């Protein structure tokens, strides 16, 4: 028993070093709900998917400030678009459109990924061009088709506000700065983990947390090889992969855009053509449409594409449905999802 608890501790510590913050946020009191389940059965320690830690170390003051800023339309050029516009926390952290709409109705060029669990990802954006959540924020703020803003304007607007100057001063000695705005938003994003999914309960030893069909789906997910890329705590989000690993996706789809070049745009290395960050599947059940181009409307559609181009093999519909059932068990909990 000592060993098991230790292992779980190790698992949760595994990511907590990323967060060298001082306050421990216990989301939802989830830990209390879960602890009997931890004791219920032997946890599955050797699985390639690991449960999301139940708690995350974040600075609650920064989280509160970051939450306000995340919903703050004044971060955009014409005060109409906030982070939450495209990353709606009530709908899985996305807007569920093929590409998002920025200021003045401008259309994005790539499907918006969810903001939930983004703190667990090893890099940000589909092409991984930002190394941290802080870095990531510069792009949407300044991109003319997204929030179309300039930092000096953003900072000026925040200075003019009644509450922001005081809130910043209470946390940061130097008050409202570009780095501090980014840090607060990033801290809020780091708090957006979704622990205690049914699948995590299963991993923690509750054998009945998922049904026979869902277990079968998980077995198939491993057997067909999806697990080679979609693994780890976030079920993805810790590596890059070429889209079209076995058969060329872009030859079939045609009309190749700059966004389709993926990581090549960042490194210029020909080996990185059409290479993308493997997306996390944690919230996949809530975040249609799928793929970087948003062309797959349902999870089954996305699986079809994955089988054809990434796995290079066929699967009966029954298997794909079982895998969809499994994917649905990956969705965890967060207070923001219920608000």
């Amino acid at each position, binding site marked *: 028993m000592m060993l098991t608890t230790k292992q779980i501790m190790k698992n949760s510590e595994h990511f907590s070093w990323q967060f060298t913050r001082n306050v421990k946020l216990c989301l939802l009191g989830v830990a209390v709900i879960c602890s009997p389940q931890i004791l219920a059965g032997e946890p599955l320690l050797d699985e390639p998917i690991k449960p999301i830690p139940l708690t995350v170390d974040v600075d609650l003051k920064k989280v509160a400030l970051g939450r306000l800023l995340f919903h703050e339309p004044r971060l955009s050029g014409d005060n109409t678009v906030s982070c939450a516009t495209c990353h709606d926390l009530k709908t899985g952290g996305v807007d569920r459109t093929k590409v998002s709409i920025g200021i003045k109705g401008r259309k994005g060029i790539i499907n918006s990924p969810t903001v939930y669990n983004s703190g667990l990802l090893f890099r940000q954006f589909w092409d991984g061009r930002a190394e941290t959540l802080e870095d990531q924020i510069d792009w949407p703020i300044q991109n003319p088709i997204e929030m179309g803003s300039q930092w000096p304007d953003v900072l000026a607007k925040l200075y003019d506000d009644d509450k922001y100057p005081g809130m910043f001063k209470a946390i940061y000695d130097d008050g409202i700065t570009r780095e501090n705005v980014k840090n607060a938003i990033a801290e809020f994003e780091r708090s957006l983990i979704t622990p205690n999914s049914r699948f995590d309960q299963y991993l923690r030893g509750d054998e009945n947390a998922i049904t026979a069909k869902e277990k079968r789906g998980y077995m198939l997910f491993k057997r067909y090889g999806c697990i080679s890329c979609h693994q780890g705590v976030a079920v993805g989000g*810790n590596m890059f992969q070429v889209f079209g690993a076995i058969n060329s996706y872009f030859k079939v789809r045609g009309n190749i855009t700059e966004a389709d070049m993926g990581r090549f745009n960042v490194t210029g290395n020909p080996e990185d053509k059409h290479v993308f960050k493997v997306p996390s599947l944690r919230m996949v059940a809530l975040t249609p449409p799928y793929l970087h181009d948003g062309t797959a409307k349902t999870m089954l559609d996305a699986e079809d594409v994955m089988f054809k181009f990434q796995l290079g093999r066929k699967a009966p519909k029954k298997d794909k449905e079982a895998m969809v059932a499994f994917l649905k068990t990956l969705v965890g909990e967060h207070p923001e999802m219920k608000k």
Partner: protein
Amino acid sequence: MKKISSIFLLVGAIAFSGALGFYLVKTMPVQQDIAFADNIENIQKLQTLDAAWSLAALYTYSTPNSDFDEVAAYLPRVRELRETLSISDLATGDVPDTLKNKLMRFLLMIESKEESIEHFKSNFAVMRNSLKFLPLASRALNVKLRKMDDEKHAASINDLYERTNAFLQRPDEGTRESLLMDLNKKDEVLMEFPESIANPLGNFISHARVLVERKIQLDSSIERVVNLKTNKIGDELITQYKAYYTDALATQYDEQFIHFIFSLIAALLLAIAAITGAVMLFRQSQEFTEKLEQGIAEKTEAYEHASAEASGSMVDKNLDQSMEGMGRMVATVAHEINTPLGYLGSNLQVLHNGMEKMQALMNEFFTLKNDLGRMDNSDQISARIDNFSILVQNTQDEAMLDELPEIVDDMEGGIEQIQHVIKDLGDFSRKDRSDEDWFDIKQCVESALKMAKKEITSGTKVQLDLKDVPEIFGSPAEMNQVLINLINNAAHAIESTGRTDGLIKIRTSLEKEQVMISIMDNGEGIDDETRRKIFEPFFTTKDVGKGTGLGLAIVRRIVTKHGGKVLLKSIPGKGTNFVFVLPVKKKPQE
């Protein structure tokens, strides 16, 4: 008047010595010390992280069910250290450009390491799937084609499959090109097959192609991940930085000393005018000297401490490096066996679970059969039978009966893969190492050449002059190893010159009742000093990971054991000739 002037001088002297003291305190390079120690520490931390990172990547490679979280977790730590160093005074401050450039090279190397690790992860993930799928696809195709009595195509698929496997065991450019060409040819005639064949055949070709295309990429990304050139550059950087710092420190003290002397002279001049002032000034400067000496002593101590720490960690790293080659070999073999073992294990679990459920169902069936004999109420009977069929239905789902054939198929594929690895290792030591027998050295040369082929660069020619010689009595497996080691050395000696007209000559002949085997190369050659140590165990001139330093020690041990001798001739820059002779024994009459 005199009194007034001496007071004036006294005040002046005090002011002067005060200024001197202020100057001394101000120039005490305490801050610089901390920065120096920090920089050294950060470089060392980065080196350590870098080495651990490689190991973590190798671990995922050799462990079934591994995930990449741990490997990814290094990123932020490496990034932080990289950023700290790139804005440190070593990068931006008043240091020589050579040192700055060295640091930049070191940091760039770490950055390209990140890239190598990413490529390793992507290639590995794809290859892992295809390696598992290819045997299944090939077997399924074979079964289908044989059912249609199409032996010809079945055989050609088999051939492609075998060749792909052989390539994966010993990849080389030539085989790669011809294999890819043949795969493409098959792809072009896909349309000629009925759909039931064309689809699985298309998949088979895609996977075989991916394996062949990615194998060399994967190997080279692993090579780049494991090869700790960063470590070497880091060590050089530390050494240069320390040398610079010691110099800088010395110059600084020289300057201070000149200033000191200068002020002393000035003070003495003043003292001639006013004894009081001079005495005071002298006292002050005595304290000053003490302070300076104390400062130097402290600094030297701190510096010695830092360098002792640094050299200590360097020793550790060297230890790591010698483990590295072995670690890689173990990781590779472990990976090749562990990957199929991984899914053999998990599939067995599914089977085990299914068997339990089936057992329960069977028990239920016998109970039902017993009970039915004793029942006469038809409602009761049909209720029991209904219950039983629900149970059957549930068992079918829970035991995953539909999956069982494929699961067993998977397992067969896994076993086949392990057999391949074992067969490969078996080739290497065809018989037990200690098994002795009569054998033909010519065959031994040919099989060793096959195994060492991977090491020989494409421009290098191999010339064989194998005369018939009597059979040798001894261990053919061990002799094989001697030859492989010598051929490998020849190949590496040529490779390090970078020449494209490499030549390896292998001759066997009978001279004075002894079998002579000579292996000659036109590589870089061996200098006298190296020659003296070359047969010592763990002595190596090769890059880390290229040689264990045991090769020639083993050669000498085996040849001596067989009653023979090893001779070595070499001209640095021209080439090397290894000759070993083995005694001819009388073969007993049968």
